[in-house]
């Protein structure tokens, strides 16, 4: 499971009670947030362990669903046992409409099936395919980050054109350098926007 990371955790002080030291990410599950002093550690991997049927999957799924609904943090849910439509059916009676969340780009789901008997090994390989799938799922829930980049790229293009006009008009090389520096600053802004998966950003 993976949920949007807020870009400015300092702005949300209440989720980090004094003395705990670790910034917390509220799960939205009231009892759990109480006994964990505010939720799961923010921005870190969390491993949930337990026997069969104790609710690991449900905890993970509820964390993702409440994140999407209550905290405007879209999430990705990757399962290795249940298929996406099975999960969707299983939690419908709890009032979680996963299809709707997927449609609203608040949730992306992927079912990764590993059937050992179907796979042979020969030579060197890596798990890049899994990362491709993860990236693709993350991109599905933050399309507006790309829209922001597209807007910034349009700005850069406009500035480039302005630069060319300026050069044609004045032949002044100093101002060309100045504008190029500005264009570079804008492209840096675009880069930092692409690294974000803040729910609030992707809403706009």
């Amino acid at each position, binding site marked *: 499971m993976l949920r949007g990371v807020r870009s400015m955790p300092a702005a949300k002080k209440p989720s980090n009670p004094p003395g705990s030291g670790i910034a917390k990410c509220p799960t939205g599950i009231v009892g759990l947030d109480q006994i964990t002093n505010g939720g799961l550690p923010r921005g870190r991997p969390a491993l949930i362990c337990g026997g069969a049927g104790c609710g690991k999957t449900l905890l993970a799924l509820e964390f993702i669903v409440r994140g999407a609904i209550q905290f405007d943090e879209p999430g990705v849910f990757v399962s290795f046992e249940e*298929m996406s*439509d*099975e999960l969707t059916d299983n939690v419908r009676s709890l009032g979680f409409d996963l299809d709707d969340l997927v449609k609203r780009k608040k949730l992306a789901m*992927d079912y*990764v*099936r*590993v*059937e050992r008997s*179907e*796979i*042979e*090994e*020969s*030579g*060197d*390989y*890596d*798990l*890049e*395919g*899994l990362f*491709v*799938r993860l*990236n*693709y799922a993350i991109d599905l829930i933050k399309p507006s980050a790309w829209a922001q980049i597209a807007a910034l790229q349009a700005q850069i293009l406009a500035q480039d054109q302005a630069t060319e006009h300026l050069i044609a008009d004045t032949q002044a090389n100093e101002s060309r350098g100045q504008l190029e520096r500005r264009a570079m600053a804008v492209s840096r802004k675009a880069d930092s926007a692409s690294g974000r998966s803040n729910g609030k950003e992707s809403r706009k």
Partner: protein
Amino acid sequence: MTKKSPARVKAAAAAESSYAWNLRLYVAGRTLKSVTAFENLKRICEEHLRGQYEIEIIDLIEQPQLAKGDQILALPTLVRRLPEPIRKIIGDLSNTG
């Protein structure tokens, strides 16, 4: 337990292909591993299946949405779609011994 997509994919592959062997190689970009895998595959096919095979290369950097259909995890992955049953080989196919 509905598994509609693999069946549909299978049927489509059978309908499209005029070769006995329909092979699909999944890679991510032009890495050393992906180039090696293709060269090895080409060599093995020419040696044993000349004129009876077709190879389709899918670059997941360009088409990441296709990783889901054949349940790709490791790269490179070779999927034998025909003849059935579907088989997968992961790795750059350098271990032919």
